[in-house]
């Protein structure tokens, strides 16, 4: 089986972000970067399949400047066989432009399975996987939390709001991975050593003109002080009313 996993380098979210002086990007000073968690689970899923199916190979692909090679190396040190960097100085916000760039590369690889994380926390848009599937004309299952592959077809579970769905799909296919599918392995020392010798191909990325432009970024306003609605169960009707009419969350 030939498996591809598209991975993204993302900043650690456990910080207070600052807006850069250009007003349209986040100040990266002091931020720590790592592979997107969802993508790490996608890598793990691919590695598990490869290990069960003799003769399989896993390729990771990442779009971005040379720093994404760190992310690719991380995947290689987890056990991925080879890496491809689609090199560009700046990755646009536009998911379609990204999907077009990736699908050009993926088309050439004739993969049986293409994995994505279901979303990345930085852009928080979650569209590149299904868009790529469409561009490639492949069946697609998003946000999977279980996966079996046998006899050229797959079975996956999707978590929906208040429901679960079991779906069947033929290969080749595009899958996006949700939390709960697996626990990603940590790179082993041997893996880190081996990763240095694995092939990492750098290709220039051909990114089409984006249709989306980030005009500005801002920090959300601070919480304003709240109020105590009342005491005891007697306050419940007032609370429910506020949740419906004022907060509009019910």
């Amino acid at each position: 089986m030939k498996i591809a996993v598209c991975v993204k380098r993302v900043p650690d979210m456990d910080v207070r972000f600052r807006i850069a002086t250009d007003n349209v990007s986040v100040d990266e000073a002091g931020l720590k970067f790592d592979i997107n968690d969802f993508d790490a689970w996608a890598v793990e899923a691919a590695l598990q399949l490869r290990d069960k199916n003799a003769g399989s190979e896993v390729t990771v692909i990442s779009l971005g400047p040379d720093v994404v090679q760190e992310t690719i190396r991380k995947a290689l040190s987890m056990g991925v066989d080879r890496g491809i960097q689609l090199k560009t100085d700046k990755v646009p916000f536009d998911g379609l432009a990204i999907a077009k760039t990736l699908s050009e590369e993926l088309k050439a690889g004739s993969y049986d399975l293409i994995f994505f994380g279901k979303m990345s926390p930085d852009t928080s848009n979650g569209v590149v996987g299904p868009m790529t599937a469409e561009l490639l004309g492949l069946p697609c299952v998003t946000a999977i939390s279980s996966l079996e592959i046998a006899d050229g077809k797959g079975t996956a579970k999707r978590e929906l709001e208040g429901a679960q769905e079991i779906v069947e799909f033929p290969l080749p296919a595009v899958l996006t991975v949700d939390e709960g599918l697996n626990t990603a392995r940590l790179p082993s020392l041997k893996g880190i050593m081996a990763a240095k010798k694995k092939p990492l191909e750098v290709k220039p990325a051909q990114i089409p003109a984006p249709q989306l432009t980030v005009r500005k970024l801002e920090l959300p306003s601070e919480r304003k002080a709240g109020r105590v609605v009342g005491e005891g169960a007697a306050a419940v009707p007032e609370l429910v009313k506020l949740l419906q009419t004022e907060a509009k969350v019910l």
Partner: protein
Amino acid sequence: MANVFAFVETRGADVRKVGLEAVTAARQIADKFNSEVHALLLGPPGIAAKAAQLGQHGADVVIVVEHAALGNYNPEVATATAADRIKSGGYRVAVFSTSAQGRDLAPRVAARVGASVVTDVLTVDAEGDSIVVRHPMNIGKVIATIAIDGSPAVIAMRPNVIAPAQNARAGRVENAQPAIDPASARVKVIETKQGGGGKLDLAEAPVVIAGGRGLKAAENFKLVEDLASAFGNAAVGATRAVTDDGWRPHADQIGQTGRLVSPELYIAVGISGAVQHLAGMRTSKTIVAINKDKDAPIFKVADYGIVGDVFEVVPALTEAVREARKHH
């Protein structure tokens, strides 16, 4: 004509609240262009009966696609049908929902029609030739203003940011067929487990109910679970004190060493509000606190607080929420 398309999400033979929100959002945009809202309603036979409701919310045209195989969401049929209609209709904007279904559907349709897409949209506006939206990034810690050039602009609204509003239009029904035979779909749903079984992820759930030491014992988490099930779209979380005591699994812990959540609504039940807990939930849109100690720090961040015994307040709230949800 700069008409606006809305995809109406259904569950079984019902229109979901997010479907009405999509129509409402589409109406607001169409009003800026003095144009029409065309709503696509896909579902099992009988779904046509809901067309009138969409008209009341502002749909000028309701395209009804009924098929016996459309009791459940079928991504390939929905994608093909919506994309065909958007292409032939020449819409300026296409509105979807950022639900589990919408997250799956909107990007597929957008790619099929050659458009980009912004999900989790908070607000939408028209400025000159661009549609301008606001979209949370970095788990809600940064808000982006994004201009969408080209037509159609495909957006997926965040649930609960636009309340469904009555704004009656003709709601003229056009019957149509699925763009592809549902039987030909490559991805097949072979089983759906409705209700209960679906574990909503804490980080994704629109509503989070969290319990703290104030619940006094592990078995009393039943109160929190009951409240969560009354909401139907709620996940259950806990404080570190509670997970340390083994009342709940560690995966449920919200805070310093646990999960960061930013739901629409966060209800803190018997939680004092130590800073290490607040760190995990303070970006929630609306925070409700129920605690018997009126000086508890949680009240400083809560939008709404009730001072009282959780064993009395929570069951009453569960009942009231169940009542309120019946109407959706």
